[in-house]
């Protein structure tokens, strides 16, 4: 049944991408083709063509004899996927193959001239064959447009049947003369094959025959095209294209590996298996294979090694020598049945490895993912930015070295340059990386043959790097060959030095070895930059590029996490030290009726996922050392929650209020004892006890096991919303802290990604609807369910995937299950699903927007009540998704393109203020941690309703004169966990009932200087009830003034943007 739902989805997908070959469409195609034919017919025969038509192209390509007399093509036919009815949207085009007689490019130039005169043709553009600049082709847009096929065009692909002798194009021969420097001529197999391609392209009957009349095979082809197009690592010039996919399918059909009884999805699975066969880790697909095709498969096991040859037909056969020659010249061979022509001549070894890897990954998706991996296989766009851990962009515009040896050798200069960069990086990065992809899609810009070939450097070259393991990628020392004692070493050492330049140095290592090495000294928090530094060094050294032409996407978002020039995460070590001290002392307390049995950290700072872990505070030490005035001393300190458990006892009271009071009582006793024994400072309120240890403030909480089962009385009549007891909440938080802590130690990059994600959610004012823990779970999901990618190994990639998860996940129909330690059994999963359905059912009756819309289930919380029990609501989630989507797009764009303004990366954390109904701006120097503020906000639209004076009674930093006095007095000036924003929001919420209209508060818990307000729903319903009464009260400005009054001394100004919606 699960399979069935996948089948259903696949058929839906096919409906979307399949083209209806309606009479209208056929007519459009026929009309266009005949229009092209008539224009070509108008070209006079024996017309003398000279190089003037495209002089620069001719010059760049290095051709000599360039005059010919025009002869009309006798052969014009439609080819490509249109002929076998397997066009996959959105790229709707028809290939028109036209046989040319001489000088491909000039032939096309002349044709273009005449085509442009035709009234039924809208415009004609230049393009290239598979990113190969020396093989231009024409793209013809017909004047007639069909709504169903937007952007339809006809590609004119020149072919040449018999102008060259095949013998001359033998793989071992050289056909490029001008670069011979006296030494023996190198064979030019790629160039030769490229010409052969023109000669053989007409002849596609050998494969087309399989597709005609075999619906499943056509469907499989379309689906595989969709699959490949989603993957920019596969659908590139040195790997796969639509044509090659159909060739592979035709090959499998010709060998009868796939047969008529198979469904399209089975064909796909088989094809992927076939591609993946040699890939090391393919045990998991064994059973499937055996099931599908037990007999035929053994034969294919090493076909890729030998090359793919279609079965013999008629007289054509390929000799053994030819096969060996092909194998020697190309890494991958798929031979055209009619001769010595390798259809896969553009495919590189690296490209094929990527293809295999992608196939393996896809098979894993098919097996492991929900709903047969439909979403992951067909619907997920896997581009550079989201796939690779490090993306680099090299701007090579105007760089002459690229084509110093000429544009077109055997390979084109740009392809050789790709190889060169790949070589440098894979040598330099070594085992730090798993995959490096270097792609220069240089012919994608609009061009014309008149521009010549030197214009192809406008598009930047892209490099994607997948990290092998973080440990290796973060390594600071690379050890090279031994010091030059032996001549053998000498050679290696010299080479090492030549490669690394001034970065190479001799070092003595612990084992006594003296060796060449490179050292990338770096602080702990900045280790992710090691790889970037290496890449920058090598690329600028070997390509003599200035640093500003190399962009490595890795640290562009770090600004949002740093304080000044350092990452506060580096204080975590001392924080954990302080925590250890505290927990030891807590355990040692003797003068307490019950001993402390366990101490567990709760705050996210302890698990490295806090956006701003606290820095040690001068006044929170046991002994206050000399207070240097060089640094600003903050007047507030964060309190980090710590959960303690006491020995069991039967003497606890039974009702919750009394339990809480007893706990407070215990905590105060603990405080007193700590103060007495160790001289630690404690400050307490009725609910909290805070202890200051080595620069940090800890807030103690007691978990009382018996309280776990206590549930507050049900609130509300129809909605059975249970409010969990204090102990239950504590318990869950403890569980969560434990789990995330475990995950963090398994994936060290989890912390930074979670921090970025939290920062993002907060800076878009989602703090009220998406709690910190929920963000952690979402990020955890990325690490636990990475498919169709590898586990992210860089913060930006992880962050991008978080945004994509948020924006793409099917929140309405699926629960998000985060199974951190793989502890959930089948029945647990079923329970979760039932809970989910139950909740959705309940919501279905009330309408979608009511109630929580995000279902996050974990081992400790199968009902999604812990973090997403109340929010985000449907409306909030919609907003979240919209924001995530636009951030995704921006981030992806930034990875590929030059940012134009100075604030581009920053825009990810700058929230647009026009999406609120009213905006409150706070005095930024009254924020408790002003250094966290990224951008001071300003509103330049809407009505300025009120402006407020700053209060004098609070400063975020202690003034120099405050720092004089005795230590005890100083400590009293330290405000533990004081946050005016929190107070303001609390007061706002508490006084909502006083206002005539309700509103929702959007804020940034990390300390932004804005608070957004949106008018709530209840306003309108209220209005409807007593129309006359409310009409008088219907005054949002009055409300906003009152809001401003609540934040006296803190609110800078209040802006009114939109009135409440008037409901019909």
């Amino acid at each position: 049944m699960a399979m069935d739902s996948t089948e259903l989805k696949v058929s839906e997908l096919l409906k979307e991408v399949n083209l209806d070959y309606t009479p209208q469409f056929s007519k459009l195609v026929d009309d266009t083709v005949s229009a092209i034919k008539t224009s070509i017919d108008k070209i006079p025969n024996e017309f003398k063509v000279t190089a003037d038509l495209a002089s620069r192209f001719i010059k760049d390509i290095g051709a000599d004899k360039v005059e010919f007399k025009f002869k009309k093509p006798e052969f014009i036919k439609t080819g490509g996927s249109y002929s076998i009815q397997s066009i996959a949207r959105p790229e709707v085009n028809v290939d028109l193959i036209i046989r040319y007689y001489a000088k491909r490019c000039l032939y096309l130039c002349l044709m273009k001239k005449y085509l442009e005169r035709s009234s039924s043709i809208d415009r004609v553009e230049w393009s290239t064959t598979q990113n190969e600049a020396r093989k231009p082709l024409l793209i013809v847009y017909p004047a007639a447009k069909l709504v169903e096929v937007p952007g339809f065009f006809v590609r004119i692909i020149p072919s040449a049947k018999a102008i060259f002798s095949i013998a001359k194009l033998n793989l071992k021969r050289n056909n490029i003369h001008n670069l011979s420097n006296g030494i023996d001529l190198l064979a030019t197999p790629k160039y030769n094959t490229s010409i052969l391609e023109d000669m053989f392209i007409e002849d596609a009957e050998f494969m087309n025959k399989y597709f005609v009349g075999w619906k499943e095979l056509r469907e499989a082809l379309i689906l595989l095209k969709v699959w490949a197009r989603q993957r920019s690592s596969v659908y590139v010039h040195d790997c796969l294209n639509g044509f090659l996919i159909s060739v592979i399918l035709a090959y499998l059909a010709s060998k009868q590996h796939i047969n008529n009884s198979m469904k399209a999805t089975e064909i796909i699975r088989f094809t992927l298996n076939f591609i993946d066969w040699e890939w090391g880790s393919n045990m998991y697909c064994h059973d499937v294979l055996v099931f599908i095709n037990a007999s035929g498969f053994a034969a294919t096991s090493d076909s890729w090694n030998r090359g793919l040859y279609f079965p013999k037909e008629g007289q054509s056969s390929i000799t053994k020598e030819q096969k060996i020659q092909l194998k020697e010249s190309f890494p991958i061979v798929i031979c055209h049945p009619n001769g010595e022509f390798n259809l896969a001549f553009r495919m590189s070894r690296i490209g094929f490895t990527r293809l295999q890897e992608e196939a393996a990954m896809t098979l894993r998706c098919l097996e492991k993912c929900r709903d047969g991996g439909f979403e992951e296989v067909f619907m997920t766009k896997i581009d550079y930015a989201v796939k690779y851990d490090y993306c680099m962009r090299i701007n090579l515009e105007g760089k002459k070295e690229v084509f110093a040896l000429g544009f077109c050798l055997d390979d084109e200069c740009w392809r050789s340059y790709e190889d060169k960069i790949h070589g440098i990086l894979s040598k330099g990065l070594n085992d730090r990386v798993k995959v490096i992809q270097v792609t220069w899609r240089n012919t994608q810009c609009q061009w014309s043959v008149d521009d010549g070939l030197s214009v192809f450097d406008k598009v930047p070259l892209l490099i994607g790097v997948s990290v092998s393991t973080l440990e290796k990628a973060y390594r600071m020392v690379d050890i090279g060959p031994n010091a030059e004692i032996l001549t053998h070493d000498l050679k290696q050492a010299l080479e090492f030095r030549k490669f690394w330049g001034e970065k190479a140095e001799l070092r003595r290592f612990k084992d006594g070895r003296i060796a060449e090495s490179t050292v990338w000294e770096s602080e702990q928090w900045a280790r992710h930059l090691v790889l970037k530094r290496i890449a920058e060094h090598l690329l600028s050294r070997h390509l003599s590029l200035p640093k500003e032409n190399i962009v490595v996407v890795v640290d562009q978002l770090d600004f949002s996490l740093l304080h000044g020039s350092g990452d506060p995460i580096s204080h975590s070590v001392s924080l954990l030290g302080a925590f250890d001290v505290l927990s030891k002392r807590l355990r040692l307390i003797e003068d307490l009726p019950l001993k402390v049995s366990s101490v567990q950290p709760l705050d996210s700072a302890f698990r490295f996922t806090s956006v701003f872990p606290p820095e040690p505070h001068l006044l929170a030490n046991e002994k206050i050392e000399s207070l240097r005035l060089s640094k600003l001393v903050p007047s507030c300190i964060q309190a980090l929650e710590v959960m303690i458990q006491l020995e069991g006892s039967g003497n606890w009271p039974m009702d919750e209020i009394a339990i809480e009071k007893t706990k407070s009582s215990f905590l105060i006793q603990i405080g007193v004892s700590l103060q007495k024994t160790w001289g630690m400072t404690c400050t307490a309120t009725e609910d909290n006890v805070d202890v200051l240890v080595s620069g940090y403030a800890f807030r103690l909480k007691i978990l009382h096991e018996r309280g776990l089962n206590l549930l507050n009385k049900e609130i509300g009549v129809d909605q059975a919303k249970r409010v969990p007891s204090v102990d239950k909440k504590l318990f869950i938080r403890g569980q969560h802290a434990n789990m995330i802590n475990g995950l963090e130690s398994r994936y060290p990059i989890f912390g930074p990604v979670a921090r970025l994600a939290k920062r993002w959610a907060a800076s878009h004012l989602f703090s009220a609807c998406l709690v910190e823990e929920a963000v952690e779970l979402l990020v955890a999901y990325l690490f636990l369910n990475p498919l169709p990618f590898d586990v992210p190994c860089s913060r930006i990639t992880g962050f991008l995937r978080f945004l994509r998860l948020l924006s793409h996940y099917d929140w309405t129909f699926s629960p998000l299950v985060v199974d951190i330690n793989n502890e959930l059994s089948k029945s647990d999963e079923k329970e979760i699903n039932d809970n989910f359905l139950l909740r959705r059912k309940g919501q279905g009756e009330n309408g979608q927007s009511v109630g929580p819309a995000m279902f996050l289930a974990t081992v400790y919380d199968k009902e999604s009540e812990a973090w997403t029990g109340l929010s985000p609501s449907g409306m909030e989630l919609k907003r979240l998704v919209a924001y995530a989507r636009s951030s995704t797009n921006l981030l992806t764009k930034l990875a590929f393109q030059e940012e134009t303004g100075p604030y581009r990366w920053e825009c990810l954390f700058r929230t647009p203020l026009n999406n609120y109904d009213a905006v409150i701006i706070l005095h930024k120097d009254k924020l408790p941690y002003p250094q966290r503020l990224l951008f001071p906000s300003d509103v330049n639209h809407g009505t300025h309703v009120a402006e407020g004076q700053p209060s004098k009674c609070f400063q975020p930093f202690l003034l120099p004169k405050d720092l004089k006095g005795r230590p005890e007095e100083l400590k009293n000036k330290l405000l533990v966990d004081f946050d005016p924003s929190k107070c303001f929001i609390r007061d706002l919420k508490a006084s909502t009932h006083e206002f005539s209209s309700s509103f929702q508060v959007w804020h940034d818990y990390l300390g932004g200087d804005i608070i957004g307000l949106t008018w709530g729903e209840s306003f309108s319903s209220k209005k409807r009830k007593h129309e006359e009464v409310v009409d008088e009260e219907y005054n949002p400005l009055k409300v906003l003034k009152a809001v401003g009054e609540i934040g006296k001394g803190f609110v800078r100004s209040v802006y009114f943007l939109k009135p409440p919606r008037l409901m019909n």
Partner: protein
Amino acid sequence: MEEREQPVVEKEQSVVEKEQENKIKVRIHAAAVNAALPSYSSHLCRSSYSSRPNLCFHILSQSNYLYIPKVKKAKSDAHTKEKKRKRNRKQNAEVETHATVESVEVDNGIHASDAKEKASINKKGKNKDKSLARKPKPKPKEEVDLDEKSDGVVDHCHSNAEEIQDFHGHRDSDTGAVIKPCRSKKDKKKRKKEFQNSLEKGEGNNKQEEVYTISSGDDDCSKGMKKWIMEYHHNRPGLDALQHQIDEFITAHEEKLEESIIGYIPKETNRKTFGFDELKKAFHAKRSLAVEKKRERKEKEALAAEGGWTVVVHHKGRKKTTDSETGIAVGSVAQAAVENKMTKKKRKEVGLDFYRFQKREAQRNEIMALQSKFEEDKKRLHQMRAARKFRPY
């Protein structure tokens, strides 16, 4: 000068707090206290903050200068008039504060003072006046001032109102500098107009269109920053006082509980007590027992050791999970261990398909479940199709 004052202020405050403590016996929430004693707390804040040093005042004025919103620029002429008038007044009324401010500046030297800043201070002073004028209940001594100022204020709000009307009518794009309305959508315009009308109907004209000034609230502790700071300090009376409060609360709670129980259950003699003292005793009893036991065991061990025996001790307590030097977690979450555990975990219970009826039932259940899932899937598919979820581009 201010430094000398500071401790005095604090003393005052603490004295007041003590007084409060004596007066109020049961304090559950700070808010309740505030509500109960508004006059008291307002007195407290006035006494302590009116004499507060003016240093903060100075820094604030600086920031205030930066924050003068754009609205003000456009109405500069009205403003300057006002300014002149106010400056005169200010010179009379606030000579004293002015002097102190300047002296502080000299003292600190961190924030260099120049003419500009003085101007900002002027502005600041003026703003304060304005805010006072708009207070709902002005203090008696300022009432004289109020009359004098009122025409200035009217002047001010008049000009402002004009501008905003401009904006609503969309006549003049020059005001764009002041307010950039979202003019793009027609319906929005409409809505705004409607809204405007309704406002006029409801509230008379233009009253709400002036930029309302919120005072800093430093002399009013019912709202805002001052209140929060007060609450913060108020909630921390010290450990002893808190303990006392809690004890009292528990006693009261117990009594209440007793009263509510009395109606139903006859008075028991061995009723459980909730008081912390009792609790403590109970806990202590247990504790001393444990200590006793431990001591006994230790003695025994010592005795055994004397006889040449080595006592093997079972160590209780937490295993070490973090490296003390680096803070890195060790051991607790070894990958291999976790994976091992995972493989073990996925055990299936056996015996559920022992009887035929069980098998049959299970089969039926499965079919039912599959059916419902299929239905669910179909529904979902439908919705996904509607949402164009099948378009891969």
